């Protein structure tokens, strides 16, 4: 049974301009209890955090602990 590519919108967004993952920050990735955030290299070669897995408890440590205020936690669409 091969897998499909079903899209879902993710609740957590990161403002690339504020994120300092390039300087080595991984705070949001470190604190998330569901371990759903990761760091990616963007088109212009800089790094940024993003939500890789849509498995969020909308609990907010990522937003609260981000040193630059780059993270916004929205409610998952299914329950908002």
């Amino acid at each position, binding site marked *: 049974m091969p897998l499909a590519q079903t899209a879902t919108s993710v609740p957590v967004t990161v403002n690339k301009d504020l994120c300092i993952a390039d300087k080595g920050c991984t705070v949001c990735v470190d604190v998330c*209890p569901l371990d759903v955030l990761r760091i990616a290299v963007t088109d212009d070669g800089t790094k940024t955090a993003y939500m890789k897995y849509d498995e969020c*408890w909308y*609990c*907010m440590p990522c937003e609260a602990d981000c040193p630059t205020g780059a993270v916004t936690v929205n409610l998952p669409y299914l329950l908002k």
Partner: protein
Amino acid sequence: MDEILDGLTQIDCDILVIGGGTAGPMAALKAKKKNPEANVVLLDKANVKRSGAISMGMDGLNNSVIPGYATPEQYTKEITIANDGICDQAAVYRYAEECYGIIQELDSFGIRFQKDQNGEYDVKKVHHIGTYVLPMPNGDTVKKALYRQLRKARINIVNRYMATRLLTGEGRVAGAICVNTRTAEFLVVRAKAVIMGLGAAGRLGLPTSGYLYGTYENASNSGEGYAMAYHAGAGLANLECYQINPLIKDYNGPACAYVAGPLGGYTANAAGERFIECDYWSGQMMQEFYDELQGGKGPVFLKLNHLAEETVAEIERVLHIVERPTRGHFHAGRGTDYRKTMIEMHISEIGFCSGHSASGVFVDENARTTIAGLYAAGDMANVPHNYMLGAFTHGAFAGEDAADYIKDMDFAEFDHAEVEAERLRVLAPTKRDDGIPPNQIEYKTRRLVNDYLQPPKVTAKMQLAQKRFAEVREDMEQGMYVRDAHELMRSLEASTILDCADMAAAASLYRTESRWGLYHNRVEYERDDENWFCHTILTKGADGQPAHAKKAVQPYVVDIADEEKDAYYNQRVDPSVAAE
């Protein structure tokens, strides 16, 4: 990150604490304090800094027993009555006696508790009979304060390892098998004592939103504590006494009548009328809630729109920054203003959690399970209605007892074939080229839990559930497929959830009576004290299936008069009074 690597490391420690949420950190601190020489390891699936139910803090202590407001006798009595008498009081009584000391200790960590003008603790009445709720004005700092103490005490913290099975040998605990959630590498921890604080089985039922992680409980608590205890042969008590909570509809977080209640808020029906006298969560209260929903007077709401502006502002201040801070975003998104509209509530998915009900791994007043050297505390241990302070206090009991237990104790020998077998089980989904992803296995299990196990419980439905679960298990064992280490963690959780679903069905079928209001409402049976005034203990039988036994309730420490026994069944507001 997330690439699947092959690896196995073994480490040794004196005391392994699994779960760094609430009970676990306190257990580790107390063990280390009592025996500074001991090597204490605190291991968590997430990051201890922000893990567990208290990740973003707590509104208050829901069950503090503070001199001047309540006595250990009163508290023990209330919890016994709330649990329809099925309660080994020794553990509750010891908690009630010693929790005040823990409050003072938390105070010394920098966690503040609300005081009145005279400097006395400002305890509020929420329960049916006594007064136990103590607000925490800086409740958002709980986890940070705890973490500072762990660092200070030099506890060895191991993050992002998920425990999957316990090791036993020589009739006692020998350690645990753990898997790295980002690399799939194995860590075998040999330990003289193991303390489990893995929290509730929070992903058992499916929230009505259909979002797998939109649970009441912190969704990283998928129930491994229950599954690991089961596979190791420990006894689990009263699993049929489900956790079911009254929550904000869709958001699925607490409506927080505990915060709003003392300030004048209450649970109301669609007409804005109060229908229960007491908003404290119990099976009996949930039954009234269910009846109101089903009886045509619902939906049910939290009503605050009759309160003064300052009061509403105060409630918002607390509810929107602590515990589940996205609550404010949720209301804003829907245009719900506490001043104008009531807040729609509903009934949560089912789970196992002694923090709010009574289902858990069987423990005594020292937090000892039925396996020597193995302890459990917090939401996964069976001390009823234990909440956060219970997790801290019983965590402390476990840590202190374990510190004594390990003296003159060596590691127990275990069978290394167990580790090999676990490696095969865990890695099986990585060895396939395609198949069913863990999220589908999990979704189907949890949807079936809702369809067939949710109360009111019906025998034929629960038997069907068992058949369906067996089919899903077959699919899981033969066809589950993962692509990276993160998905592997989810596959292990799916397997845990299925174990818990099997236990929930089996335990509910065994107790052929109704008890604990909605929690174990079996429509074909009445309450039957003659045959069922006892605990039920579930263990793994020789055939690998759940086995059951009755266990007598220990003689009471605090007597309950006959006329008090059913106090929790008298919660419905008298219609003639409500009309006034």
